[in-house]
């Protein structure tokens, strides 16, 4: 197994893929977004309950797909719980940079999310990593249910 594969599929990532955190649904007063990646079949159902001040009060997901998409969703939920809207937006932007650009020193606030940095060597897999974050952005926009997100432009 070569270095690039080991950087892509780091142990923490594989662990999240196999034992996803915050896996499930939120019964009440949550925004629900269905995100899918039609070209490869990855999908997640993201449930987010926002506090009145916009903070992420509770966040869970279900889904199926490749290790990258499912681990990314799991890692995202652990990171976003309790965050304010501003913090969450910053994280989403920093994560996008992490998986798409050559960042030598990724911001500390990303924490465990930094295990996803290997994705940038695999351009076809960026959309897998971004899928849950696109769903979260949609949830923040408050359009859950009305307009599912997709990594393909329609």
């Amino acid at each position, binding site marked *: 197994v*070569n270095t*690039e*594969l080991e950087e892509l599929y780091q142990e923490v990532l594989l662990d999240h893929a196999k034992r996803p955190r915050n896996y499930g649904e939120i019964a009440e007063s949550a925004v629900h977004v269905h995100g899918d990646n039609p070209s490869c*079949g990855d999908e997640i159902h993201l449930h987010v309950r926002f506090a009145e001040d916009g903070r992420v009060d509770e966040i869970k997901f279900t889904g199926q797909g*490749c290790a990258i998409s499912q681990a990314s969703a799991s890692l995202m939920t652990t990171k976003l719980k309790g965050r304010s809207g501003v913090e969450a937006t910053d994280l989403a932007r920093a994560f996008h940079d992490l998986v798409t650009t050559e960042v030598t020193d990724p911001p500390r606030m990303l924490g465990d999310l930094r295990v996803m940095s290997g994705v940038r060597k695999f351009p076809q*897999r960026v959309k897998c990593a971004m899928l849950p974050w696109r769903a979260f952005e949609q949830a923040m926009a408050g359009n859950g249910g009305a307009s599912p997100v997709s990594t393909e432009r329609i």
Partner: protein
Amino acid sequence: MHVSARSESAVDWNAVRADFPILQQEVRGHPLIYFDNAATSQKPRAVIDALRHYYEHDNANVHRGLHELSSRATEAYESARARVASYLGAATADEIVFTRGTSESINLVAQSWGGKFLRADDVILLTEMEHHSNLVPWQLIAERTGARLRFVPVRDDGTLALDQLASLLTEEVKLFSFTHVSNSLGTINPVAELCAKARAAGALTLVDAAQSAGHMPLDVRELGCDFLAFSGHKMCGPTGIGALYGRAEILDRMPPWQGGGEMIVSVALEKSTFKKPPHRFEAGTPNIAGAIGLAAAIDYLERIGRDRIFEHDEALALYAMKRLGELPDVRVLGPRDRRGALVSFVMSTAHPHDVTTFADQHGLALRGGHHCNQPLMRKLGVPGTARASFYFYNQREEIDAMIDILGEAQRFFA
């Protein structure tokens, strides 16, 4: 070209492989194993040379120039049409329309024939194993005409539910369009039988030969089909060229589907008159080099022999199934015995895309995903599959290497 195809017994497959310059390379430090032939095949030197020769010596527009190069280009282009006709067993070259490939061929029939002859509540019969290219064109024309789509179900073993055919082929069915070989399951459908039943029920037939035209002997009159569509690039030819075979009397009744130069007899400002088939359906400057390259590919395949190619590829597919069966937690989809040149499988330990990425890092080109068969994947209850598809330049040793890589992937993702 070093093929000793004349002798009854042996093709020197190693010499054949050496005809493909692209295969002599390493990818990510490993010898390239190209198992994505159902997506597109590689090109032998003979085809590459034919393209170069055309552009270096004969390039001109066809059918209109009164100069030497145009005569040569026209001659080569129309010879290519005759070559395709003989390859498919068509009665005349006029039954061959050059297109960009299978998808465009099917769209041509849907738009031209369907647009003229389909009425509300007519039925187009398809199967559940169709590639999107033999589904979406029919959805579009059904929307426009009010015709309906109906599907022959796929059984769990990957074969068509032929016992239901009689009840599905009602008199509303105007056309039955189906694939010869499934690109995601490897199923080989009994084309002659399907065509005979459709004809008996008064329906026309279209065969999607994308996965069969370069892989097995095939004769449109023996099959008894009305239309047949295929792509050059999956059978050693260039991309952007393919053909539609249509029975002459049906093509004759079909209107143009695209307008432009090349397809008209005379044009006035208000109205034009159109050429006979096949030129009626070839508006604009055609893919001349592509057609010439396709003819070179056909020559190449026939020197090896399509029966030998089929035997070789099926043996590889069956060997791959046997070897995959040795790995734990691998499920191979599709028929167990007779099959086209591919295996499609799922591993419980890893998603098809992770398997494909892992394989790529070992120089092994697989395809992972739904293979343009989303409804079928849903029916089979899988998110997609990993697919290894073979051609005559592939070797058993490459399958052994694939099994090692997949075993390593299982340990990696476990």
